């Protein structure tokens, strides 16, 4: 029973991070209509930027480092859009997919060139987790839950009450409108990239704080995020949030039944099953930020 509860908690923590990845991915998919393979590298970049600022010689505090990482990743995302995706606005979604695959390959290996292939860890002090009845939670994990929840709340306020947020919703609500790409939509697309990149950065930092960093960490998290996007229905922000949490839970609870070697295959299985049986997502709403 304690195993189940512990897995549930771990799943919830992982899921709240995946949710941040998934929201960004679903916003991009909802407005630009392609699966951005390089989203995983935004996540990875967020983690490594924060690592860069946290380690000597800069030695900044985790929160300031995280803030710097967000700025860095947003710049990176806007650069990607400017140089590659924006010239391909009206291209076939498969062309964009291949282009983003190329970008992903490029940055994944760039990280390896700079930081090497080995696992790295944020310089947090090692602490025993706090026992809450049958489950154990580390202080870092508690922070992760708080920050993830905070990020989601900020996102809610942004989408609900700001002009830019409303513009994103209207574009995402009306994919045909988005296909015309006027000046106005270009502005909205920029906002979408900023939101998606910030969430990827926050998620990446949290993920690295919960676990560790390595240059290829983006790929598996992209897969998880994509599974979450499909679960929630493409373009559906709140669906993606819930989808992320479901993926986190199913990964951590799934290994209680499945052989442990298949943990990373769970997200893939979810993708295949969803595509086959409910391509419109579990929540059933195909488009729109609702």
């Amino acid at each position, binding site marked *: 029973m*304690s*195993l189940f509860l*512990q*897995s549930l908690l*771990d799943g919830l923590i*992982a899921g709240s991070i995946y949710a941040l990845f998934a929201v960004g991915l679903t916003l991009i998919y909802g407005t630009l209509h392609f699966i951005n393979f390089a989203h995983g590298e935004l996540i990875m970049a967020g983690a490594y930027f924060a690592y860069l600022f946290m380690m000597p010689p800069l030695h900044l505090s985790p929160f300031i480092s995280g803030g710097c990482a967000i700025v860095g990743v947003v710049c990176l995302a806007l650069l990607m859009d400017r140089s590659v995706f924006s010239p391909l606005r009206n291209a076939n979604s498969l062309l964009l997919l291949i282009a983003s695959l190329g970008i992903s390959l490029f940055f994944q290996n760039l990280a390896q060139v700079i930081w*090497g*292939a*080995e*696992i790295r*860890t944020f310089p947090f002090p*090692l*602490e*025993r*987790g706090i*026992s809450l009845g049958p489950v*154990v939670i*580390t202080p870092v994990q508690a922070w992760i839950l708080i920050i993830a929840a905070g990020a989601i709340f900020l996102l809610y306020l942004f989408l609900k009450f700001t002009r830019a947020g409303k513009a994103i919703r209207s574009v995402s609500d009306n994919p045909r409108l988005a296909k015309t790409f006027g000046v106005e939509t270009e502005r909205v697309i920029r906002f979408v990239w900023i939101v998606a990149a910030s969430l990827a950065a926050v998620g990446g930092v949290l*993920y*690295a704080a*919960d*676990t*560790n*960093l*390595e240059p*290829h*960490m983006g790929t598996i998290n992209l897969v998880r995020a994509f599974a979450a996007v499909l679960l929630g229905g493409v373009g559906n922000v709140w669906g993606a949030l819930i989808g992320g949490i479901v993926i986190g839970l199913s*990964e*951590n609870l799934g*290994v209680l039944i499945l052989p*442990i*070697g298949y*943990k*990373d295959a769970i997200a893939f299985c979810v993708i295949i099953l969803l595509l086959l049986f409910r391509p419109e997502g579990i929540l059933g709403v195909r488009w729109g930020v609702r």
Partner: protein
Amino acid sequence: MKKIIVFVAIVVSAVLFLAQAGMSSGTIKIGAVQPLSGNLAVYGQGFKMAIDLAVDEINANGGIKGKKLEVIYEDGKGTAKDSVAAVRKLIDVDKVPVILGPAASTNFLAVAPICERAHVVLIGAESASPAITKAGDYIFRVFPSDKLQGKGVADLVIKLGYKKVPVLYINNDWGKGLKDEFVKNFTKKGGKILSEIPYDQGKTDYRAQLLKIKQLHPKAAVALVYVKDGAVIFKQAYELGIQTQWITGSAAKSGKLIKLAGKAVEGLIGTYPNFSTTSPQYKHFVALWKKKYGDKKIGIFAEYNYDMVHLVAKAIAKGGTTPDGIRKALYEVSKGYKGVTGDKTFDANGDVGSAYGVWMVKDGKIVTRK
């Protein structure tokens, strides 16, 4: 289209040119395939340093019968495919009689049949897989087979008085090979395996595996891990509040583990192929290393690589530069040869024996346990 043809032509002519250039000089050339890039590159650099150390020593002492020894390095990138290509190049382009084989048993096993068929001696200093024992007549290694280490870990667990343990192991050729040997020996001695839990190398999160262990509440648990993933595992175990005696093998025995995992590995116990650190050979090796590399830490398996090169040099001196001569001579020169890592006498399969010691982490330091 034209550009492609031009490019291919340039590549081919460059290849031919460089191959010609390499033929001329009057040195004895041997090949080495090491993971100079890719996932294992961190280790590959260290192996190369140790090999260079031995080569420099040999050449400073007059080389082999007056000729200098030269090692041609090829990058195996830590993958079977690239190791095979590298070995092909060494055999066919450079026509070396001996190849210092690639690290990681997967890669070593992939290239072994090629060397065997080409009648080129392949010798390894890191690969521990039991399968290598039967890889062929031209295949040697100066590192003990995991058959011995698996038994060593099992003996240790029994000696410490644990009868029931779960075993966590890295799901690659090395981890699984060692795990199988451990399980075989441990159950033979009356122990019981609670659970066999594999994990994939290079992942960032191993909590799901650790929870399985936690749930068993074992008094002791065996973890067959490398350094980097071992550090992650022991840290996450510590955070999860798993209180158990961790027992491991030799691959995690490194100061880096303690640097990475700190108090999480305090009390960790492991076995390692034992060789005396008080022998004159070892002292000589350390002095040599200090002279060449200063304060740089002696890398993992460096001693084995060093011994390997010396054995090969002796065999070339005795048997000449043909692969068959070297192969025969290797058996002869190794008989009773006392290297840095102890007795290197090859048995009929080209394997060496080894003693096993016990190490543990105490007050943040690796100490030998009596």
